[in-house]
């Protein structure tokens, strides 16, 4: 009961504060924190679902009305959550360390970028861009193309495991990026490093602004991905993946066809990234190979590991934490230090204004991020929300899964 009141109060209070201080990053963080609190609090399931739905469907867009940047952050979080959930299948469940995951994101993004912009005229002569409505079709095209790419990557690496697999997937990610960089000759497919623009955006009903529309679209896709993830996890396929992660040889001896299971894992993981790639390219209007670097793959992997390998809430929370750290906390931190510096504040008798340029805060954002990762791995190596085994009552035939603890 106390938890229920606290949960409602936390959401109400934090959202009021955001309305009062629409520019304060700290206040926006309390709003995000309140959602996390709602998720872990010991409250009835209907209340939890209701509060989360309220926060995500109503309050977040409202906050976006006060400060558009927050909605942008939320949309980015959603995009990365989808990527983390996809990678979670490959790395967390099936145990196949993939260091080139962002390649599938790129494949999805380019599939719509090429056909949704006038760029395709250079390849096919004329008749492009496709009508904006095709965007919705391309969500599925991106999914299919990325899944196919996943299978293509999977085939040559089936016999590899562990470190060897990681190196090959790393190479694969680089190949896709280099292809994107260089496939402007002899036929201009990707326009090379200059990138493709303008990429068409989908038609929207009722004149909803694009920022809100993309937010809701991303949210919808993430929800679908979570449902799909859950269902896979609770099926023979998910169990086969986990068995493969635990002991490949024993899994095969128990009748799990490794080739098939691995290709399924690669294809499922890749397809999520493909869908989000399509959304990403339309949202950004412009894409170039810079968006799909090795660092992005590592970033998504960091989300999965930080959140807790093989755990769905973990992947979502990991994506949120990393994205918010990158977009808001670390940026805000450097801005704050810069302000102190410009104001000539003295610390321990030393005026920050004399700080050499090498020590500019913006330069060690990455370092702070690295330190946070290291500290997390030392003190909570299993991640923020480690995967829990579902406990089932065997007396009844197949009751719904119930989770232990909060």
């Amino acid at each position, binding site marked *: 009961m106390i938890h229920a009141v606290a949960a409602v109060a936390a959401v109400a209070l934090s959202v009021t504060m955001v309305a009062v201080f629409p520019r304060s990053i700290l206040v926006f963080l309390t709003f995000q924190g309140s959602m996390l609190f709602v998720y872990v609090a010991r409250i009835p399931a209907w209340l939890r679902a209701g509060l989360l739905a309220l926060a995500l469907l109503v309050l977040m867009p409202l906050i976006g009305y006060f400060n558009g940047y927050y909605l942008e952050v939320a949309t980015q979080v959603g995009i990365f959550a989808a990527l983390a959930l996809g990678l979670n299948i490959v790395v967390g469940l099936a145990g196949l360390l993939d260091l080139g995951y962002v390649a599938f994101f790129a494949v999805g993004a380019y599939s719509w970028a090429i056909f949704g912009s006038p760029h395709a005229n250079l390849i096919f002569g004329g008749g492009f861009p496709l009508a904006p409505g095709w965007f919705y079709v391309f969500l599925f095209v991106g999914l299919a193309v990325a899944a196919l790419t996943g299978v293509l990557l999977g085939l040559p690496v089936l016999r590899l495991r562990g470190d060897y697999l990681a190196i090959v997937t790393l190479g694969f990610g680089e190949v896709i990026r280099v292809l994107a960089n260089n496939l402007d000759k002899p036929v201009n497919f990707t326009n090379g490093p200059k990138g493709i623009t303008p990429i068409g955006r989908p038609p929207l009903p009722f004149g909803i602004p694009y920022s809100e529309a993309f937010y809701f679209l991303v949210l919808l896709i993430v929800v679908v991905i979570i449902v799909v993830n859950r269902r896979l996890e609770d099926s*023979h396929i998910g169990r086969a993946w986990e068995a493969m992660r635990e002991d490949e040889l024993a*899994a095969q001896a128990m009748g799990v066809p490794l080739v098939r299971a691995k290709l399924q894992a690669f294809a499922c993981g890749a397809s999520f990234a493909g869908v989000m790639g399509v959304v990403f390219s339309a949202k950004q209007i412009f894409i170039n190979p810079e968006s799909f670097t090795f660092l992005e793959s590592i970033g998504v992997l960091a989300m999965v590991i930080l959140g807790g390998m093989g755990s769905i809430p973990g992947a979502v929370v990991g994506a949120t934490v990393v994205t918010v750290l990158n977009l808001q906390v670390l940026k805000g931190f450097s801005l704050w230090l810069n302000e102190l510096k410009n104001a000539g504040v003295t610390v321990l008798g030393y005026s920050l204004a004399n700080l050499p340029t090498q020590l500019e805060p913006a330069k060690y954002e990455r370092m702070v991020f690295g330190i946070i990762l290291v500290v997390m791995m030392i003190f909570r190596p299993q991640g923020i929300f480690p995967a829990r085994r579902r406990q*089932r009552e065997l007396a009844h035939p197949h009751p719904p899964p119930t989770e232990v603890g909060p």
Partner: protein
Amino acid sequence: MTALFESRGIVKRFGGLVAINRVDYSLDRGISSIIGPNGAGKTTLFNVFTGLYEPDAGEVTFRGHSLVGLRPDQITALGVCRTFQNIRLFANMTAIENVLVGMHARVRLGLWDALTHRRKFHQVERGLWRRGSELLDRVGLRANANEIARNLPYGDQRRLELARALASEPSLLLLDEPTAGMTQGEAGDLMGLLRRLVVDLDLAILLIEHNMRVVMEVSDRVTVLDHGEKIAEGLPRDVQGDARVIEAYLGRRSTSRSPRAAP
């Protein structure tokens, strides 16, 4: 009438070492055992039978199907399943989940069924869970169904591996030292269980065992391997008295081989 399981002229080499040398073997319903000193090639033979190793020569057939060249999962699907000498459970999954993985070859569902959660999916899944808890019941682990495999005591882990192998509905079950690390009492219980399984499920069981008391009590037939070759075969009491077997275990006078528990 051909035997349920038959191998002819199996040869397996590792570099210059001949691990298995022209072994003919056949078995039918009941419990058969393979014994032999360390390094005799017993586990290698198991690995050839279950598809983990491909033999350099020879033929393995099960119900008339050739098993050579098939993948381990295909062999399991045909009805030959095994346990491992060093327990290889899925350590971070629960006991019941381990058993469910064992049923994988019998699940007739695809990716699409799992995604859509159709009624058929729920029916099949319900059936799997019911059978899984029955199997756990059979090996006496029903109460531990939701425990993480890694946390189970050693003897329970062995029995869970047995349940997991049974889950694939085998006609031939290969057990690699199932009583290793068990007390005499536990081993006796396990053998009683195996006897019941043979009757209830119409199983053929092939054991590798070092525990001679167990072997002699439970086996219908014993085969002795030494240096990759079959040196004796027959009823337990006949094998026990065989001069070559005694020699393989204890060595001839003035040759040095570490003595093992003599039969």
